[in-house]
Each structure stands twice: as structure tokens, then as C-alpha cells.
């Protein structure tokens, strides 16, 4: 069936802020979908308030609404725009929920908007637990029995019908505390009692136990004519029990025989046929490791994190094709864009394996509960592709950018073996490394299989790596041969691992490899295992065989190094920057090469760059690509700290790092050198010292005066930063913490933080949007609400700041984009930090000023004269206020303190814009709160006694809130009320359990008076300036 001609204008719902469980994958799928619709001549309207996305670029849709993802704003947009169709399946759960709300409230019917793709009945059938269960019963597709219970009686009633063993999962407890597996009634009653009392809402989920089953997923597509295809299946290394987003996943499955593979494939098709899906769908199964018995775990009637992974693992653009199916096309009408010759109605054949490993935030938050279970905790993921599983796994491990030594996590070396066994059983983020450590200690595959349920195949892959490592340890560099080295490389060992083993330098191994011609081959992801010719430049490296193409031609080329997995502090904004850099280079006639390893993102869409390499971001892996491409210049400014970290090694290898010398990067990061630089250009510095060892910290702090700020050098997102108020706090903290020295000790300045992104060629300077942070110093910029243009700075202060920025730019021998963090302590302006790279605010600055900072920076890096950028012509004068508000994922990270600190915790952000500051604030804060308690209709605010004096009672009462304190209602009691909305503690202990409790109850937790003022509308009254004051 061809395209539905009556669909001319479509509203696409994005996924809003990045939160755990809903991340960059929806920028990728949303961008693909919008472009696919535009390609068909459809007018695309987008609602998405996440500024750090490619999806919200002007070029991706025809009209972007940065509005809260609520029913009210969606309704208003529909009323204004009158779209013919709504595409809701590319915006994650947010998109589906909003579409369901629009449908249920009759808005779609009222305005005659057609829901494109999968219809509402099918969505509800897949989403509603009971409806889904009854459909699956009809189809004879097995689902594990489960029930939500509130009492022992209810629990026993379920047990009577389901039988044992049963799993008890208390709702909302830290890390599943209080639950477990019951083999018999006695244990079951004990667990249910314990679970009900542990759960703050006295609720448990009880289900039959399928622990130890293999977890297998299928990505399925279906068109309106009923053609069904499966794009790819995936096997979780971790058996059922760990959320698939927290599991190590391989594609395709490795341990399923043909019969089981196709049994589950047929079941997937059977299910989506019955649901009537049009578009993409994800189906998850639990498969018994021996008997072929299976259960259906979950169906997601939309594109998902898994579909993004499947797209990158196979080359098949699921979201793009799904968007075309939604407007009426059939699979057989659409070409397979990878081969260009075959059709979309086929199933990719892979001739490699893709391995995904999640990236968790526990290196940043060791105090959070790191046990893995049914609640996803990873913030991002990496993917590696190879033709050997061992090599793929080692590549993926390298891509994580963790402080590890090869496949070994040093911290585990001190654990006794029985604690490691316990950690292997009760999986946390370290499980992979725990298994490696146990193998190193000689534990058998059989033993590890018995305690973990992990298929022996995966354990044997790990054992192969360990065995090879042990063999290599017995060898030395002098007696190394070409073939022995090649064997080690084939199993995925990096030059760094080998250099460490043999105590030689990396460049020495690199040099010898080149003499021996031991270099990787680059092979193409072609969707068809080489059966058909394909000219898609999507590559991965492997150490056996020859390359598919010769890319060493002499066109103008530049490589952009990406930002790797999404972490707190290094998020999707850097992917945005990398994509724009690629586009800018292409516009200037360069072939732009992208190197990255994050399967969720737009940058790893093979259609973005001229060639895409899915590789770890280590100097060796990057240099191998540059060598193969014949490239000698790289852009590192846009991949966050990840790309800056490789600058020195690349420069040493003779590669030109565009924009600045490596020495300058060091000058900005090394505090002593940085202060010397500021002083040399006549700028004041915040009093500070560098402590080279622990004993030097206290004397340094004494001489500076408390409070002090401690931080390590070279950090992402304020990692390891802490403010200490007095000597007692400092001594205690030093005793409890192991730090890597040098440590920077600064006098902690109390004042107003301001930041800006600066574009320069060293002579000419453009100071972009200036952001004022609502919360005062001591809160990481990523966690602050911020406003541009500033509202509480005087015109004079802004001029001073702008002049200072220009002064810095013209004195630091730097080309491109950089970011300055300022602080005003009274009238005194200090420069706190210069980040010689694109920053988190670059996408917002670009969007609110119409000056595309990254594109311009790339042009400058590639030699375009500053005046040819014509910045003044595109600058819009910032006609509106824009407010950025952080979005946190505390609900997913029990145990993580919600107390704001210099260490960043938020996972995402939203913006709101309006000529009126209050409106902009309201939009941003409403948009940031969609997952939290609704403040629109009042409720209660619990304030700790110590904070009550700072709570503005009158303004809260005017807004319909009542203030509660421990004296009027104990905190525990308050938590049980329906009206609870906000928890306030302005002098919190970071370990405050009340704050953590409130956070996992989806309440607003405010630990700074400024945050509270922003929410109750009193912030703007502080200093409201007239509009249009931004200096240039």
C-alpha cells in the first residue's frame, strides 16, 4: 500500500529529558522518524523540551515546541497547529503515555487527529497488564503468573493457583530489600511479611520464579499488510532477573539452536500479528536453558533502547522504516537503505557479533545502592563489534572508560574469594569483573555457571581471555613473534594491556606492529553478510582477514572523536556537538569521519558521517582508524572529556589536534598552571592551593580559610568535588576517603555563578548566551536551574564579564569553542574554570541565539576566517528568556542523596522559553517535573525544623500548599499521605535518609532556598531586568 495521501501535517512526540531508562536512543529514533516524514513532504511539528538533542534542531522538523510534555501543552499545540496525524511511538514511554492521555481525553477525536502506526487499542493491550495477559492466554503464549498483593491472604491465594517457587518483590524498597525467592509456603509467608513491612506502600509483586532462564529479545516490524520481519534477536549474558537495560547483551543470540531461535521468532510474529502492530515492536522472552520451554516477559509496542541497539548492531534503520510504515508504506515497497539494491522486507544476516555493556553511575556514586534487579540503573551503554566474541567483549570493556586494567577491576583484587562469589550471585555493576577475577583465581566455568546461571558459553569466552592473559604473562616482549602477537590481538588485547604485561611502552608495541604489519582490518556492516554488494561506510575493526574497502584516498578529510557512553556529567549534549561538527565539516567539502561507541546516539547513525567507525575511544583504537583512513587531523573539542583525554597520545603519534595545543589543554586543567595563566593576563584568582599528598590538605585549607572546595584534576561533571565547612568536617572526610593526588584545595567562594560559551579564532571573539545559575555556589552547574539572559546581574556586571571573556579568548592561543564558569562574590568577578571544549550549554546557546556555535567552531578549526561566519546576521538578539531546569533520576537510584552539591547528579535537562521570565520558569520547571508529584493543585510541603525560618509561608499558602513540620506530622506519617508534594531541608546532611526517602517517593526535594524560590514564583522578583540586555 502506498503512502496515505491525506496525511500532510504530523505531530511527533519526543521523549523529553534524559532520565535513566529513557535516554539518547530516543533522540536517534526521533530524529530518524522526523527526517523520514519530511522526506515524504510531510510538515512535521515536534513537541520536545530537551534542548540537547539533534531532534529539536530547526533542520529536523518544521516547527519545534519546547513545551512541557503534558496533556495541556500538547492540547494547545494541536489546537493551534491542527495536525492530521500523531506519531507517538518514537518518544519512549513519555510519548506513549502522552498519546494515551490525548486519546483518553478525547482530544485526538475532537481535532480529528489520526494516531499513526500502531493503534491505541493495540498500545493499550500491550501496556495494560491484565489486557495483555488475557490476549496472551488466548494466543496460548505463556506469561509468567504474577500478582500485586497487599496482604498475606492475597499472597497465599496467588500461591495456591501458581505453585512454588515464587519471587516476592516489595515495591519501592532500596535495591529490592526485603524480597527473595521462596521454595515453600513457610519461606513465602516469611518473605511476604518482611516485604510488606519493608515496602513504604505495603505492596509486593509476587510472581512465579523463572530465575536461571535465558533472556532473549526480538526486534520485530510489521506493516499494515501484515508482513512481519524480525530485524535481530539478542541474548542477555545475564539470565532473567537483571533488567535488560542493565544486562550485557549480545546480538545475534549465540547459544540458541535453530529450532529455539525460530520458535521464539515465530512467537514474536504471532504476538505482534495478534496485537496488530504497525511499525516496530520489542518482544522479550525467558527461555529455559534446557527444555525449550519459554515465557513471554514483556512487549514494547514502540521503538525502544533495544531497537536502537538492534539498528546499530545490524545497520537496519528501524525507526526510519517504522515512520514510513506509520504513514502507509509496506516493507516490500521500501528499499533497504544499506545495500540500496535489496528491499526493507528482509531480515539482516550478521557476520560478526555485537556486544553491549551498560554504563552505570556507581563509579561516581559509590554510596548509591548498586545491586541490579528489575529496575534499570544504567545511564548509558557501549557497543563493540568484532568477529570473535573474546575481542568484542574486550573492546566493549575498553569502551566503558572505567579505571580498569584490561579486563581487571583493581579494587576487586583485595576481596576474599567467598565475597566475590557472593557478588557473582547477587549481581551488581561489577559482576563481569567479578567473574573475570574468579576465573583468574582458578574457579571453574562449571562452578561459576552453577552459582550464576550464566550459560557456560559466555563463561568460556571469558576463560579464554583469562587463559590468554596468563599465557602472555609468561612471555616477554623481546621474544615476541609476529604470529604470537597477532594471536593476542585477535583475542582483543590492546597495546596498552600488552605494554602493561611486558613493561614496555605503548608506542613501542605500536611501532613494532606496523613493522610486522599487524594492523586491524575494517569490515562493513552491510546487513547481508556480504551476500550483496553494499557501499555503506559503516565499519568495525577485526584482527583477522582483509579490509572490505580501501579508504586511503587523498580527499580532504577530518575525524571527529565522539563522547562514548552517556554518563552523568557527560551526556547527550556532546553527541549533539559531534553531529554538528560532522555536518559543518561536510559543508566545507571535507569527508567527515566519526569514531564513537555509543549505540544510542545520532552520531552513530551511519547516515550522519561519511564514514562511521564503531570503536573504543582509546588512543590505539583511534590511531588505527586514522591510519586506515590516512587522516592526520582530528577534532576533539566536541566529545567532552572523553575526546580530550586522548589528545596527548594522538599528538605524540604525530596527529594534529585542531584548535589548540595539548599543552594549552593541560594549562587549563592543571590548577597551578591555570592560575598562573589568569595572573599573567591580569585576572584575579580564587585563593587556592594544590595538595600533592594527604598531609598537605589541612595546612592548605587553614591558610585559605573555610569553607574549602576539594577536587581532583581532570574531572567529568564535578566528580569527587566536595565543599567542607570546617576543619572537623575536613579531617573526618580525609579519613574516610581515598583520593588520587594532586588534589585542588580552593577557598570556597559564596556568590552568583554565571557561565558562557565563547567562540574564537584567537583574535575575534563571540560571547554567546550568558547563563545565570539560580542556585548559588556549591551546586554543580549541571544541577542548577539557569536563566539566560541573566536577570540578577547589572548591565555593568555583564559588560565586565563579556570583556573578561574576550580578554581570555584573545590571550589563550585557542581556536574553536570553549566555556567559562564565572562567579561574582559581591562585585568581585572570578574566573572559576575554563573548559577548553564544548560544554553542556552549547546546544542551548545555539538554539536560543540562532548562532550555531559548534558549526562555527568547526569552520574556524578548519581555517574559515571569523568574518565569513557572519555571526551578527544570524544572531537573534535573544528576544526571550530561556530557563534550563535539571532533571534527576533519583527514583531509579535508591540510596543516592538528592542533596545538591558540587558533584553533578542530574541525568537530563529541559528548557522553557518566553518573553516573560515567570512563564519561562514555569514552563521549564513544569517540564522538569513530569515524573514528580504534580504541584499544580497544591498539597503539603514538609519542611525540616532547621529550614522553617527560610520557608516563605505566605507565598506557599497563596499557591494552595500547607507547610508541615515534624511537630505537626512526623515525616514517616507525612509520607503516607496523599497530599505530600515537596520536602524541604536547606541545611541537609548529604546522608539524610528523609531526603532520600522523599526522592524515591517521586517528591520534590529542595535543598537550596533558591530552588524553592524558583518554584514558588518569588525568584524573578529578586532582580528583574528589562529584556534585550545581552552584551556582545
Amino acid at each position, binding site marked *: 500500500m502506498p503512502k496515505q495521501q491525506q496525511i500532510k501535517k504530523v505531530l511527533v512526540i519526543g521523549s523529553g529529558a534524559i532520565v535513566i531508562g529513557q535516554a539518547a536512543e530516543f533522540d536517534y529514533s526521533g530524529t530518524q522518524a522526523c527526517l523520514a516524514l519530511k522526506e515524504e513532504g510531510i510538515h512535521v511539528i515536534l513537541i520536545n523540551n530537551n534542548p540537547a538533542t539533534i531532534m529539536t534542531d530547526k533542520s529536523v522538523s518544521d516547527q519545534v515546541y519546547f513545551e512541557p510534555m503534558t496533556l495541556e501543552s500538547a492540547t494547545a499545540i494541536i489546537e493551534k497547529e491542527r495536525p492530521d496525524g500523531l506519531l507517538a511511538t518514537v518518544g519512549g514511554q513519555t510519548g506513549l503515555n502522552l498519546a494515551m492521555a490525548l486519546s483518553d481525553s478525547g482530544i485526538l477525536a475532537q481535532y480529528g487527529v489520526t494516531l499513526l502506526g500502531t493503534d491505541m487499542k493495540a498500545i493499550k493491550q500491550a501496556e495494560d497488564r491484565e489486557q495483555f495477559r488475557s490476549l496472551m492466554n488466548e494466543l496460548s503464549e505463556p506469561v509468567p503468573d504474577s500478582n500485586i498483593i497487599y496482604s498475606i491472604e492475597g499472597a497465599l491465594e496467588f500461591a495456591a493457583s501458581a505453585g512454588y517457587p515464587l519471587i516476592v518483590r516489595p515495591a519501592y524498597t532500596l535495591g529490592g530489600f526485603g524480597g527473595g525467592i521462596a521454595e515453600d509456603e513457610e519461606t513465602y509467608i516469611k518473605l511476604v511479611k518482611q516485604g510488606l513491612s519493608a515496602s513504604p506502600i505495603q505492596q509486593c509483586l509476587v510472581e512465579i520464579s523463572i530465575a536461571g532462564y535465558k533472556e532473549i529479545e526480538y526486534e520485530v516490524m510489521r506493516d499494515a*499488510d*501484515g*508482513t*512481519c*520481519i524480525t530485524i535481530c534477536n539478542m541474548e542477555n549474558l545475564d539470565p532473567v532477573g537483571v533488567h535488560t537495560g542493565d544486562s550485557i547483551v549480545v546480538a*545475534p*543470540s*549465540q*547459544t*540458541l*539452536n*535453530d*529450532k529455539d*531461535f*525460530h520458535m521464539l*521468532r*515465530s512467537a514474536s*510474529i504471532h504476538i505482534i500479528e495478534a496485537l496488530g502492530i504497525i511499525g516496530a515492536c520489542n518482544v522479550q522472552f525467558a527461555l529455559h*536453558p*534446557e527444555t525449550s520451554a519459554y515465557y513471554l516477559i514483556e512487549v514494547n509496542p514502540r521503538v525502544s533502547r533495544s531497537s536502537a541497539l538492534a539498528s546499530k548492531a545490524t545497520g537496519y534503520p528501524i525507526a526510519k522504516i517504522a515512520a514510513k510504515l506509520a504513514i502507509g508504506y*509496506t*516493507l*516490500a515497497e521500501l528499499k533497504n537503505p544499506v545495500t540500496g*539494491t*535489496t*528491499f526493507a*522486507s*528482509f*531480515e*539482516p*544476516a*550478521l*557476520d*560478526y*557479533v555485537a556486544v553491549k555493556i551498560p554504563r552505570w553511575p556507581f563509579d561516581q556514586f559509590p554510596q548509591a545502592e548498586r545491586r541490579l534487579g528489575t529496575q534499570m540503573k544504567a545511564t548509558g551503554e557501549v557497543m563493540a563489534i568484532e*568477529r*570473535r*566474541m573474546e575481542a568484542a567483549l574486550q573492546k566493549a570493556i575498553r569502551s566503558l572508560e572505567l579505571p580498569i586494567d584490561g579486563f581487571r577491576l583493581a579494587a576487586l583484587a583485595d576481596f576474599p574469594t567467598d565475597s566475590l562469589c557472593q557478588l557473582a550471585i547477587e549481581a551488581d555493576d561489577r559482576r563481569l569483573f567479578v567473574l573475570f577475577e574468579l576465573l583468574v583465581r582458578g574457579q571453574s*566455568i*562449571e562452578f561459576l555457571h552453577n552459582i550464576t546461571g550464566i550459560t*557456560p*558459553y559466555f563463561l*568460556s*569466552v571469558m*576463560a*579464554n581471555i583469562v587463559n590468554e592473559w596468563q599465557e602472555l604473562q609468561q612471555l616477554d616482549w623481546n621474544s615476541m613473534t609476529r604470529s604470537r602477537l597477532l594471536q593476542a590481538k585477535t583475542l582483543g588485547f590492546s597495546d596498552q594491556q600488552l605494554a602493561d604485561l611486558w613493561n614496555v611502552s605503548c608506542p613501542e608495541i605500536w611501532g613494532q606492529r606496523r613493522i610486522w604489519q599487524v594492523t586491524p582490518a575494517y*569490515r562493513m556492516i552491510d546487513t*547481508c*553478510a*556480504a*551476500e*550483496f*554488494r553494499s557501499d555503506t561506510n559503516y565499519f568495525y575493526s577485526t584482527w*583477522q*582477514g*582483509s579490509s*572490505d574497502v580501501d579508504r586511503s584516498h587523498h580527499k580532504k578529510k577530518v575525524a571527529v572523536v565522539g563522547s562514548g557512553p552517556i554518563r552523568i556529567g557527560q551526556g547527550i549534549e556532546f553527541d549533539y556537538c559531534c553531529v554538528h561538527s560532522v555536518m559543518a565539516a561536510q559543508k566545507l567539502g571535507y569527508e567527515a569521519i566519526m569514531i564513537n561507541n555509543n549505540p544510542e546516539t545520532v552520531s552513530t547513525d551511519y547516515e550522519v558521517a561519511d564514514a562511521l567507525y564503531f570503536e573504543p575511544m582509546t588512543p590505539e583504537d583511534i590511531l588505527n582508524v586514522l591510519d586506515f583512513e590516512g587522516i592526520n587531523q582530528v577534532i576533539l573539542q566536541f566529545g567532552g572529556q572523553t575526546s580530550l583525554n586522548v589528545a596527548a597520545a594522538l599528538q605524540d603519534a604525530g596527529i594534529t589536534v585542531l584548535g589548540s595545543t595539548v599543552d594549552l589543554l593541560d594549562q587549563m586543567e592543571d590548577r597551578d598552571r591555570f592560575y598562573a595563566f589568569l595572573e599573567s593576563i591580569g585576572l584575579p584568582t580564587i585563593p587556592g592551593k594544590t595538595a600533592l599528598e594527604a598531609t598537605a590538605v589541612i595546612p592548605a585549607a587553614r591558610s585559605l580559610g573555610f569553607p574549602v572546595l576539594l577536587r581532583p584534576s581532570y574531572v567529568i561533571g564535578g566528580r569527587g568535588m566536595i565543599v567542607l565547612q570546617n576543619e572537623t568536617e575536613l579531617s573526618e572526610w580525609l579519613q574516610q576517603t581515598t583520593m588520587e593526588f594532586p588534589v585542588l584545595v580552593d577557598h570556597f567562594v559564596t556568590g552568583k555563578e554565571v557561565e558562557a560559551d565563547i567562540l574564537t579564532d584567537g583574535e575575534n571573539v563571540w560571547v554567546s548566551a550568558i547563563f545565570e545559575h539560580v542556585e548559588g555556589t556549591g551546586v554543580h552547574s549541571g544541577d542548577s536551574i539557569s536563566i539566560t539572559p541573566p536577570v540578577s546581574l547589572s548591565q555593568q556586571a555583564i559588560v565586565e564579564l563579556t570583556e573578561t571573556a574576550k580578554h581570555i579568548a584573545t590571550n589563550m592561543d585557542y581556536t574553536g569553542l570553549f566555556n567559562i564558569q564565572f562567579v561574582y562574590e559581591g562585585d568581585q568577578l572570578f574566573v572559576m574554570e575554563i573548559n577548553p571544549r564544548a560544554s553542556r550549554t552549547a546546544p542551548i546557546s545555539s538554539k536560543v541565539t540562532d548562532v550555531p556555535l559548534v558549526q562555527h567552531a568547526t569552520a574556524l578549526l578548519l581555517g574559515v576566517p571569523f568574518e565569513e561566519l557572519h555571526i551578527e546576521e544570524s544572531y537573534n538578539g535573544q528576544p526571550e528568556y530561556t530557563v534550563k531546569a535539571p532533571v534527576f533520576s533519583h527514583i531509579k537510584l535508591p540510596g543516592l542523596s538528592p542533596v545538591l552539591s558540587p558533584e553533578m547528579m542530574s541525568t537530563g535537562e529541559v528548557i522553557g522559553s518566553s518573553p516573560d521570565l515567570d512563564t519561562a520558569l514555569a514552563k521549564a520547571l513544569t517540564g522538569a517535573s513530569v515524573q514528580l508529584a504534580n504541584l499544580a493543585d497544591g498539597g503539603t510541603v514538609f519542611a525540616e525544623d532547621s529550614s522553617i525560618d527560610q520557608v516563605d509561608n505566605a507565598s506557599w499558602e497563596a499557591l494552595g500548599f500547607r507547610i508541615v513540620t515534624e511537630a505537626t506530622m512526623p515525616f514517616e506519617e507525612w509520607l503516607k499521605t496523599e497530599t505530600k508534594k515537596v520536602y524541604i531541608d536547606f541545611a541537609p546532611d548529604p546522608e539524610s535518609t528523609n531526603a532520600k526517602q522523599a526522592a524515591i517517593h517521586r517528591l520534590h526535594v529542595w535543598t537550596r532556598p533558591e530552588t524553592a524560590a524558583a518554584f514558588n514564583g518569588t525568584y524573578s522578583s529578586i532582580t528583574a531586568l528589562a529584556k534585550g540586555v545581552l552584551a556582545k
Partner: protein
Amino acid sequence: MTGLLTLSNGQTFKGHWHGKSSAIQGEVVFFTGMTGYEEVLTDPSYKGQIIVFSYPLIGQYGIQSLYAQSDSIQVAGIIVAGLYDGPLSKDSIPLAEFAINHGIPILSGVDTRSVIQNVRESGTMQSQLIHTSLPELAWEPVQTYFFPATTTTDKIQTVGSGSAHIGLIDFHYKSSILNELLELDCRVSIIPYATATETLDSLQLDGLLFSNGPGDPAALQHLFPTYRDWAERYPSFGICLGHQVLASAFGAKTTKLAYGHRGANHPVMNLQTKRVSMSSQNHSYVVEKNSLQDTPFSVLYENVNDGSVEGLVHDTLPLKTVQFHPEAAPGPTDHLELFHQFLAAAQQKESVKMHA
């Protein structure tokens, strides 16, 4: 132990040799499915060929005899990139052990993607698989004729006890075809391909299933008139070689594809319903579309990628044929329905006889 795969275009590929040292030659073909190596190796249609697996990790679930398509390994040699030799579940034996037991060599560690690129560009060709201790063989042409004109008729074997009685015309059938019929409660007589018509008729069959098999259908040319006679009198269904043979028997021509279709992801469109589905395929020869003009056939299935004929339906008779493998094994089971349709036709036999 190393060995060499030499293609007749001169390209050579080194690997590790598993099994007794030997020197063999055969047509090199590749299979793109990611599972099902056991079914492929034992599929009689691969008889005498040297099979290259495109999926680089082979052997992870071992061999469970349950899924074998015949009593022995049919291919002459096995080429893989990675051969798994780690622990397996207790009811499996390692692939290498299975191959060694059957005296079939495996060459592992081979750059299989490059081999496949060669075959894709040059077409399937003769190749030699030789242990390094042995000299190259004298080159022989690719063997495509597997059905000698003079043959002794083997005994007819009957299995199952169902109500419908189906004759499985044996061109070296895959056991999953037989199993599918038995599953559908048929009594199946396995009929050697050169059986006399009187013998066939004496069995009182309800329908005929012309099986898959190796090589060029032209090898059976001398029997085309017999098969046409049978198909005109019995509801019939042809699979793979059986499809080519039936088409040829009614006057169509066949031709050889450059490198065939061998895999689990071949999209075919049913031209009546316009639905596309995935099929399991293993063939070099195809029925030429323009040779169908003078036959009583219409195209029922077409290959979405190259437009080749994937299935035929007779204009008047209950006769359907498919180039792909509806029994799967290995591959997708999207077309099992075709067996049901065939049985339904077979159970209408009385009316057919009157019609004929």
C-alpha cells in the same frame, strides 16, 4: 595442522585443519543463516559441496542428532571462521567431533567474509580443500548431476499410520519434510525417484510430495514425462529440486544462479496476497520466468530481492511448487501452512481424479 582452501579463480585461504589429513574438491557455496549449522551439514541438497558459513562463530550449541536432516554429513568440507570448542550441554557433542566421526574435514580460522566476497563476484566455483601435507588435486568440473539414468529401484518404505497417504518422491529428502508430514498425521511412503508408475499407482496414494535434492534438475530429464503424468493424476507439491523438476516436466526451463540462495532470510512475496515472508533457501538453479509462458503455471511466489521465481501454481490442477523450504530446518517457519494446503488438496483427491 593447517590446510588450504583454493578456489578455481586462484584465490587461496589458509586455516586450521580439523580431522584426518585429506584432499577433497567440490563446489564452494556459502550459507548466511546465523543458526542451523547442524541442519545445513546434514541436508542432502548440499551433497558434495564445500560449505562456507558466513556467521563467524559456529558450534556454540554443539550437535544434537535430533536436528539432523539425514543420517550423515552431506557436505564434502566445512569452512568456518571461529569454531567453538568449549563446554556444551550434556546432550550435545562438539561439532569438530561430529565432523571427524563422519570423516569430513573442517577448516577453521578462515577469512570467510573474503571467501564469500569472491564467490559473490565470481559465482560459485570448484574448489579444493587440502591438508598442507598433501599435493593439489587435478581439477575436475563442478558435479551437478546426482541422478544416474540407470538406477536400481530401492524398496519403498512406509512410515506413519495417519489417514492421508502421501508419496514422498525421494530426490534425497530432508528428514524435516518427512517429519512435517508425520506431524500432520500422514502415512508416508518414501518413493525412490525412478520407481515405476505401476508400482506408484499400486500404493493408492492421496498425494505426492516431490522432495528437495542436490544439483541440476536436468539430471532427471529422462523422467520428466513420468513426473508430469504423476502430477496430472495426483495432488502434488514440489519443494526446491522437486519444484524445478515439476516445472521442467511441464515445459519450463531452469538456469543456474551466479551464487545461489543459501540462508534463512530470503524474502518472498506471495503474488496473490502481496504478503512478504521470510524463507529458508538452498539452491543454485531457478526456473526461468519467461519459460513459463507455454506452461500451465502461474508464478505464486517471487523473490523480493532479485525477482526470481520462488513458487508456482498450476492453473487447473491441485499442484503447487516452491523453490524455498517451507519445512525450514534451518530457518524461519513462516510457510508451514503450505503443508496444510497440500494435505487439504490431497484429501480432495476424489474430485481431482474425476477432473483428470
